[in-house]
């Protein structure tokens, strides 16, 4: 392999020297002359991309506004509904009689007991949110130290009715405790006699670990999503788009090597993809920091933060991942007949990449097995998870990085090969 490479290099150099001696148009070597062309292609593609509203939409607006709004907005609405349901006093139809229970209901205001001639119909028509059926002679049985069975009817498909059920259960539990306390008193026992063991629990996870868990659950998914979506429009436009607009032939008739053109285009896709990733990471952390405390009373003290070092390594891994994604999108776009077709190929790719991101928290037992860090896409998400949970292993990280670079290079090579094939270029 190496021997062949050396032979090739010698031949190439020899050929170049012979050409130079001929004294005509100077023919630079294969790589030293690529720089200016790569820059020219990159600059032009970026200029075009930045003038395209679609790019700005998916690269800036989506990660900066839509993603945080969706991630925080939906939980916020849910929380708000929970709060409303918690503070409400639902109307509950009571069938049967127990003065003690009804008195407790009125004093605790857990439910509003009402009478209804046809309680089930009232429940269906939402005039009451639950029906409680008390057995006949309940008071007498309870007073005789007996046990009774109370029925609750509710509608599990309705969140208000489900909440009402919870309140009824609360009420009955409170009532039961009162009865128990009375019975214990009569027997000269204390509640401690019933609970010989008490539990004292303490969470030893640090603020950082808790915030890491939260970030590990959310961030990899959005990095994956934006890595794909951020560069998608650009990738589709700068290869399949050139075919469709009829600008490709002029480009192919120009002197730069195919490698230089593809490299310039690849870097433009990567810039769009990585730009979206950086923006989404920043906007997620910012919005979680500012928005989360207001959202969850329990997380009031949760400090969402990412140490700078971790953030940089995270973005480094994300860059290599974005490189692989961009190379694949570019190759697909070169192969496609039209932007439409390219779009159709890229959409399944999106799901192939985003689904593993969602699955990783549930297959966390695979973490630590070496082969996982060689599987494209999966390796990146395990690396992200380790970084965010603070269980980082540099060996895993190295393996992930090297394999990402390798895969990206192979795909880029395929993209160049496709770009050099007449059958692909003139596929219409």
């Amino acid at each position: 392999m190496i021997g062949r490479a050396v032979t090739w290099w010698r031949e190439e150099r020899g050929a170049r020297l012979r050409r130079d001696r001929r004294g005509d148009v100077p023919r630079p070597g294969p790589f030293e002359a690529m720089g200016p062309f790569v820059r020219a292609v990159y600059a032009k593609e970026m200029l075009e991309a930045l003038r395209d509203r679609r790019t700005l939409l998916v690269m800036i607006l989506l990660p900066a506004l839509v993603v945080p709004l969706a991630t925080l907005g939906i939980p916020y609405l849910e929380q708000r509904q929970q709060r409303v349901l918690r503070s409400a006093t639902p109307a509950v139809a009571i069938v049967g009689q127990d003065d003690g229970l009804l008195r407790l209901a009125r004093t605790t205001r857990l439910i509003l007991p009402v009478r209804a001639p046809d309680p089930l119909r009232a429940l269906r028509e939402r005039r009451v949110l639950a029906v409680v059926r008390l057995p006949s002679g309940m008071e007498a049985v309870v007073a005789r130290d007996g046990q009774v069975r109370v029925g609750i009817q509710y509608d599990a498909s309705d969140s208000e009715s489900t909440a009402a059920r919870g309140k009824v259960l609360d009420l009955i539990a409170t009532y039961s405790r009162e009865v128990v306390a009375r019975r214990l008193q009569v027997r000269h026992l204390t509640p401690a006699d019933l609970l010989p063991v008490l539990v004292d629990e303490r969470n030893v996870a640090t603020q950082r670990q808790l915030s890491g868990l939260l970030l590990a659950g959310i961030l990899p998914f959005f990095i994956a999503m934006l890595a794909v979506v951020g560069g998608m429009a650009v990738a589709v436009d700068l290869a399949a788009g050139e075919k469709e607009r009829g600008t490709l032939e002029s480009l192919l008739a120009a002197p730069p090597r195919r490698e230089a053109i593809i490299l310039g285009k690849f870097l433009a896709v990567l810039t769009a993809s990585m730009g979206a990733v950086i923006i989404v990471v920043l906007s997620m952390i910012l919005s979680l920091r500012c928005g989360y405390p207001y959202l969850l009373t329990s997380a009031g003290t949760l400090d969402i933060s990412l140490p700078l070092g971790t953030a940089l390594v995270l973005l480094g891994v994300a860059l290599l991942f974005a490189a692989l994604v961009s190379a694949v999108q570019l190759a697909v776009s070169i192969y496609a007949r039209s932007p439409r077709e390219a779009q159709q190929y890229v959409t399944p790719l999106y799901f192939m990449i985003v689904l593993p991101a969602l699955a990783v928290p549930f297959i966390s037992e695979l973490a630590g097995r070496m082969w996982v860090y060689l599987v494209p896409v999966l390796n990146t998400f395990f690396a992200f998870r380790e970084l965010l949970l603070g269980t980082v292993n540099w060996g895993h990280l190295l393996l992930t990085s090297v394999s990402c670079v390798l895969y990206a290079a192979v795909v880029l090579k395929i993209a160049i090969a496709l770009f050099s094939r007449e059958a692909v270029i003139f596929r219409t």
Partner: protein
Amino acid sequence: MTAREAAGGPDVLVEAVDLQKRFPTFHAVRGVSFRCYAGEVFGLLGPNGAGKTTTLRMLTTILRPTSGGARIAGYDVTREPEAVRRVIGVLPEHAGIYGRLTAREAVRYTGRLYGVQPEVLEGRVEAILETLEMAPHIDRISDTLSRGMKQKVNIARALIHDPPVVFLDEPTSGLDVISARSVREFVRRFKRDGRCVILSTHLMEEAERLCDRVAIIAGGRVLAQGRLAELKAHTGLGLEETFVQFVEDTAR
């Protein structure tokens, strides 16, 4: 052919020798040979599907000939494609534009692709667009330009590196009378500059107005070539009849 002929005299800028191109499904070009000289406009004249575009694509190194070969300004199209690309200007058929770039940016981009030195590039971009009467529209976004103006931008892109050989594939197709007229005017100017211009057309009158010599192509073969006047004299007919005569003779 002798070695000296193969090398080409000082004036021969384009030499195609038995060019053939076979696609998986059909044989598009079945042996095309011709020579063009500096200061000459050479026309590839033929009906649609005759193989004109495929021939031009082989000469501009975009397609690889299945057999045969060509030399442009002394460089071999198959063995030295990159050297060939540096000395030719190309206006492809139905050439598109980069809609979100201005005329200036599009021409500047092409200049950079051809390695035009940055110090001279800006001046050249302005000069060439001015020559093409595009000065008032130089900073307009290309999507807003008329069809004729877009074609002028593409002509400017083909000439930004001052190539000795220019290939124009159906340069006036789809243009209105005025735009087509000004494109023809530029072709004459290229000729006066001493460039070798090869253009393809299916329009007899365009060939008659512009070309010093033509090759009549049909079915992937050159049916006749020479000065149009000579070809007409040969058949004793008008140009259109001459053309039809040649095409029908081979079809028979």
